């Protein structure tokens, strides 16, 4: 009996020592080494791919933002600022509920199923809004023109991209609101469209923040 207790204790002690040694290797040396290499070779990317406009950091090319008007009195959900290209809905994003000294954005999805009543309503409303907002005199958006990602929330809620189709149907609205020629805005979208990597990996996309920065420059020039 006594013997087995000592043996167990000895075994657990060996286990603890193994864990501590491996913690030093995998939990201290490894992340520090990778950080050293990353900060040495790719400092911009390792620190979040920040992008600047007019000398100021305006976000990350990887993190989607909302382009909304300020909340009016009594409003609960802000209205989109239609002067700018709009990204995807972000119904899955949350705010932090613990450690509330910060105001963090919690990435996440809605996790609603295809037959969920909330999701059906969100998608319907979003589709109606996309059609209404982007139909301007002389240009009507048909329901079939609206791509799926324009009316659904992404997995992270922080999707920085939209499909070229969604950017295209916003062109007439952007041109009208900013008093720019349609062709000029369309050219801007085309310049900011990325195809699939190597022609087949992923999906074609337009980075909304980069597009809006370019749009801002265009508006300032004209």
């Amino acid at each position: 009996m006594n013997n087995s207790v000592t043996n167990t204790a000895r075994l657990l002690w060996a286990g603890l020592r193994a864990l501590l040694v491996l913690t030093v290797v995998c939990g201290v040396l490894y992340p520090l080494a990778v950080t050293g290499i990353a900060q040495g070779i790719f400092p911009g990317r390792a620190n979040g791919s920040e992008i600047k406009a007019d000398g100021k950091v305006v976000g990350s090319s990887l993190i989607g933002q909302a382009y909304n008007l300020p909340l009016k009195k009594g409003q609960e959900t802000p209205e989109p600022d239609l002067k700018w290209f709009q990204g995807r809905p972000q119904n899955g994003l949350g705010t932090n509920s613990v450690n509330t000294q910060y105001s963090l954005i919690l990435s996440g999805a809605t996790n609603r199923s295809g037959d969920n009543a909330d999701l059906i309503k969100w998608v319907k409303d979003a589709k109606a809004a996309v059609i209404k907002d982007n139909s301007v005199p002389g240009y009507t958006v048909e329901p079939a023109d609206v791509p799926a990602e324009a009316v659904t929330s992404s997995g992270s809620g922080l999707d920085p991209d939209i499909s070229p189709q969604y950017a295209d149907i916003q062109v007439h609205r952007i041109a009208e609101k900013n008093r720019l020629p349609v062709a000029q805005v369309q050219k801007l979208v085309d310049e900011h469209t990325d195809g699939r990597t190597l022609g087949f990996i992923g999906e074609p996309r337009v980075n909304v923040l980069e597009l809006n920065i370019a749009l801002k420059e265009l508006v300032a020039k004209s």
Partner: protein
Amino acid sequence: MSPVLAGVLQLLALIAALALAYRPLGDYMARVYSSDKHLRVEKWIYKGIGANPNAQMRWPAYLRGVLAFSAVSVLFLYLLQRVQGHLPGSLGFTAIDPDQAFNTAASFVTNTNWQSYYGEQAMGHVVQTAGLAVQNFVSAAVGMAVAVALVRGFARSRTGELGNFWSDLVRGTVRILLPLSVVAAVVLVACGAIQNFAGIHSVGQFFGGSQQWNGGAVASQEAIKEVGTNGGGYFNANSAHPFENPTPFSNLFEIFLLLVIPFALTRTFGQMVGSIRQGYAILATMVTIWIGFTALMMATEFHHHGPAFDIAGGAMEGKETRFGVGASSIFAVATTLTSTGAVNSFHSSFTGLGGGITMLGMQLGEIAPGGTGSGLYGMLIMAIIAVFIAGLMVGRTPEYLGKKIGTREIKFAACYILITPALVLVFTAAAMALSTPGHSMTNSGAHGFSEILYAYTSGANNNGSAFAGLNADTQWFNSTIGLVMLLGRFVPMVFVLALAGSLAEQKPVPATAGTLRTEKPLFTGLLVGAVLIITGLTYFPALALGPLAEGLAS
């Protein structure tokens, strides 16, 4: 190019990359576990542990090593979270509550990485890198050690000796997981994954004002999270978060990482038992199931059956624009057929049948190709069941790789395949029968049931992905899923090691004309059938109530 064609081409590129890595990595791992030389750094580690790496262990000693190391790991990780408020580098984050800390400790030690917490607001630098990421390495190394012990059971004769647990643990970590992770982490940073210790800081926005971001050692954790088939995200959105998985290429690369070791281990197995072709037969079984599931998933997701998807014109809810439907389907199948559980898109918002495919993938026992190590030993257990069934058909004592599958062996194998379904179904039934657990559901009806079935399936099979509408941060779910993860990991390991010990003691039986040729396509077919039928019969009633009901109704 159509999205469907792009999806198929991505799958083909993935197969080509895995095929290129198969031989060199598989042979390398066989040498790692067979060599009698120790690296200098390993000798230092053995000195630190105070263990003799050359001492051979019989199965009870090997098992005691596994259990002692894992028990200490659970306790250490639990305490680390409980004292987080007092640790430096914790960003001011406070201690994790006891039930959640237990759940998370059990989760990461069992290679599950189920997360009932939000990474962004709960875990500081120290817990993430020195706690969670360390378990990403060692839990994967433990899985590989147990798999290698079973392979030695087949390879050795007239001995009970299965190798040395400490040596297998350290070698797996130092020679396999660490080098792969360093390379992978640097590639991920090059794509845009972050790697810094900036903590929480403010960054400007397009409209002025600022947003708060978490900085952290994300790429280094992401790399081992995939290589070790762990799956616990630094952020809540896991591999859908652009800082974890920034580009279409990084996405394909991450899928490659989570599949490469489990597939290559079949080569290691073939090398160690002295017949490469036996390894190919196991590989062929895994590949058949994996490609079949991926094809089914792409078909259902591109077809996007379901009211909300019909209105939207595509199943893009919970999926990122840069990945699209194709790459999200490939990821979802790879992560649930391995024990990874990382997600680049949210399974709860897949079509009804698509969600069912993710669940069935886990319920097969995660063996195609499965987790690092656990996939191989799980599939070898199924191979034993398959030769047993074949033996019954022709009325011969079954044998596999020159070892008789007698009463003792088949009992261990049968216990192994019963334990996980029992855990899943009993706890799902209990949660449904009680009144409060149901309050955690986000969706109602069949999908609500699926949320709970998915949770226990994911826990017992050590996957870690979720139908994340379920609010799992309750005392009931934290404690029961924690328990299910521990039982689902370590009870099967007991049977695997006992089986390994029993096989190693046998003397080999010479192959005769009546021996089932287990390296032939016929056996692969038999094994695929055994896997699908045994699991299908076990889980079919539960699946019919959840994903099948949802998929067929809409």
